[in-house]
């Protein structure tokens, strides 16, 4: 079945929906999503969205910019960061106007709270910058944007999985997709495609990410020739519920929660004397694991305690409602009376499809655009987060760059027509799927998936070393070989979940390889990338973005792209 649209947006999380709204009623927009829109992983964001509104304390966008640059360990592109921090207040006010139910100050303004790495006066003291709606900020923004799209009659294709991008003479001309309910192949001929497909936390065994976070957009763009940038930078959030990885928001520490080791010591005071428990996530995650390695994990195990017992009923009842429930349901812990056992959990991809601040997917170190192809949100690397993202900058990133992509795409579609695309695309994709379904595979999906997740967790997570990275690369490549022999047992065409699982696994294996390659290449420690064999940051050799491009019949090609430094020269990063 063939469709024609001005724009196809892939992904119905915050970036995709914000872009769809920006594209406006005069544009023919289709939003494709492999899950129903309100099931998107943006909805799991808890703590808030960063913007220097100054509603609670003096603040300005330049302090926000400084914090973001420093948080990124100086790898973020400062031109893009300046745009994001300047746009932030406007973005938040727009959300409020659309109806987002932010918590309020006594004067009825948007309330703000402290968060990791947010400071005033260029690092002098913690500042309240996170705008929030209890601890369900992502969920209510997602609902509001989706409902705005309903009001605008945006066309949704729910439970459609993108299969491939259509590229003709170097331009993106649409995509092919698989309809889960029927097994039908759909060809979308469009002037532009925006990828807003989110992250890939499911590459790792312990993660806060949803089952749908399998990096499909990144992997499909990569196979279509778009380079992936800085994929070795993977954020491990310090406070996942022990064993489960379910997120306990940084807002818990923003509201006054503290981390304790087995000796009852508030150990972050030792590592970050100024902002203590509100140090950035990469640091806190490392500190937790250092405590564990020093034998100060709780009961000798690999977790520490997050203590909220002193916060009082009002804070807990109005600002941390959901996480108290999570701790109770899954951890069996009443967080009002006892500490929550926590350990780092894979949370966020700083890297992604190389893109600029207007959403253009770029092909090389000169930022040459990939015509017709755009990316925004977690699947893109603009790069505003560099080597480590600050809390509350991801919701901001999705909305600022979702909106800017929308504006830019509108210009593009007015200057360009639809391409003439080959008429055998549907048959080609159907043949690929038939091949997957009909071959007698000797390998099963489950074991390959689990081995990948275990290897990545053990060898490519918080601490890394050449030896274990080499091992991981070998293991991932062996799994890619085994993947060729995978069989699909479900032969049906109605809601064939197994077929989707297989496609997702292929995507994740590609990404796992790129992450490991980047981590091996970067012989330094910066932000979330911590090499035990190279413990120092090395600006001489590695103040540059890692780019990896897919090559047919050859190993992926690795090259670098300079960092854009406009204002803050790299310095030692202390908190």
């Amino acid at each position: 079945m063939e469709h024609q649209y001005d724009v196809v947006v892939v992904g119905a999380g915050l970036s995709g929906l914000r872009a769809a709204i920006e594209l406006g009623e005069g544009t023919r927009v289709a939003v494709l999503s492999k899950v129903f829109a309100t099931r998107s992983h943006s909805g799991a964001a808890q703590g808030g969205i960063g913007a220097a509104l100054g509603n609670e304390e003096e603040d300005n966008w330049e302090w926000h910019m400084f914090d973001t640059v420093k948080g990124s360990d100086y790898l973020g592109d400062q031109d893009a960061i300046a745009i994001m921090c300047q746009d932030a207040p406007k973005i938040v006010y727009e959300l409020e106007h659309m109806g987002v139910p932010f918590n309020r100050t006594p004067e009825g303004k948007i309330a703000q709270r402290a968060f990791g790495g947010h400071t005033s006066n260029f690092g002098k003291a913690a500042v309240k910058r996170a705008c929030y709606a209890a601890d369900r900020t992502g969920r209510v923004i997602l609902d509001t944007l989706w409902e705005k799209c309903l009001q605008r009659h945006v066309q949704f294709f729910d439970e459609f999985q993108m299969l491939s991008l259509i590229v003709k003479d170097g331009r993106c001309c649409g995509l092919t997709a698989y309809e889960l309910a029927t097994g039908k192949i759909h060809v979308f001929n469009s002037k532009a495609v925006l990828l807003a497909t989110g992250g890939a936390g499911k590459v790792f065994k312990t993660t806060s990410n949803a089952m749908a976070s399998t990096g499909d957009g990144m992997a499909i763009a990569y196979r279509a020739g778009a380079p992936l940038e800085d994929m070795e930078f993977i954020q491990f959030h310090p406070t996942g519920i022990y064993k489960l990885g379910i997120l306990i928001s940084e807002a818990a520490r923003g509201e006054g929660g503290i981390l304790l080791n087995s000796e009852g010591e508030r150990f972050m005071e030792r590592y970050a004397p100024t902002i203590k428990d509100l140090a950035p996530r990469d640091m806190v995650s490392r500190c937790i694991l250092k405590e564990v390695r020093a034998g100060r994990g709780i009961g000798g195990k690999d977790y520490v305690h997050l203590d909220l017992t002193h916060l009082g009923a009002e804070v807990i009842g109005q600002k941390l409602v959901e996480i108290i429930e999570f701790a109770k349901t899954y951890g069996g812990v009443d967080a009002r009376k006892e500490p929550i056992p926590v350990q780092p959990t894979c949370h966020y991809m700083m890297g992604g499809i190389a893109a600029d601040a207007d959403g253009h997917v770029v092909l090389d170190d000169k930022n040459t655009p990939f015509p017709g192809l755009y990316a925004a949100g977690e699947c893109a690397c603009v790069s505003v987060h560099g080597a480590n993202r600050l809390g509350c900058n991801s919701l901001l990133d999705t909305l600022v760059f979702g909106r800017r992509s929308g504006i830019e795409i509108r210009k593009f579609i007015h200057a360009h027509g639809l391409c003439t695309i080959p008429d055998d695309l549907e048959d080609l994709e159907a043949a690929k799927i038939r091949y997957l379904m009909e071959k007698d595979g000797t390998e099963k999906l489950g074991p390959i998936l689990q081995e990948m997740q275990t290897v990545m967790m053990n060898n490519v997570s918080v601490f890394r070393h050449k030896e274990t990275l080499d091992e991981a690369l070998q293991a991932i490549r062996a799994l890619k070989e085994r993947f060729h022999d995978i069989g699909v047992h479900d032969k049906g065409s109605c809601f064939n979940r197994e077929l989707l699982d297989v496609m997702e696994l292929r995507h994740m294996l590609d990404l796992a390889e790129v992450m490991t390659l980047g981590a091996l290449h970067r012989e330094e420690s910066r932000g979330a990338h911590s090499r035990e064999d190279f413990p120092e940051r090395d600006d001489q050799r590695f103040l540059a973005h890692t780019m990896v491009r897919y090559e047919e019949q050859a190993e992926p090609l690795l090259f670098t792209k300079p960092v854009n430094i406009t204002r803050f020269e790299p310095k030692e990063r202390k908190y």
Partner: protein
Amino acid sequence: MKATFVIFRFDPAVDKQPRYQEYAIDVESTDKILDCLNRIRWELDPTLVYRASCSHGICGSDAMVINGHVGLACQKLVRDYKTANNFVIEPLPLFNVIKDLVVDMDPFFEKHRYVRPYLINDEGVPEKERIQSAEEQKVIEPALRCILCASCTSSCPISRANPNYLGPAALLRAFRYINDSRDTATGGRLAQLDNNEGAWGCKTMWWCTDVCPKGIPVTKCIGQIKRAIKQQEKNE
């Protein structure tokens, strides 16, 4: 320890009637029901399908019937059930089954759209935020917990009896906008619900409140809509 799962199966391509299939797996008492389903799918039977994503009760994908009660598979743990590790899993009632535990939610979202689930404000847009007091905000707080999982609507006896009834989830969304101090369409919203397909369809049977996985007092919120309608009539 061992557990037995008897699961509702239906594939429209091959089954004339739904059937139940039994699976035996090892479980821990702290496993989520969703973990068990995942294990069955990955280790025993990849053809079994259900919706799920966030796995911690915020995306709203995996409402289903577990041992006769509607719940989220990712929010219910093995230890929550006193049934000697015997589980019967069925799709949400009220909706048509697409396959196995996957149901057609279109009618549910159709009703959601009907209540105009977006802020209507004809007063022009200020430069900064609209002012709203913490007390005004608190009124709508219960409704903000809703994750659109459809547990309430699929459990509601009135919804089962009258397909035209909006149902608790859509009414809760209406409540959220009726009581948002920034919304200026309150009168029209109340008028839209002043009938038996709307607020008066609710016969206060509390099933919605009982099953809500987010602890929302749904029935009370619908009651507040009814009172607001009466108040509006009095004022006219």
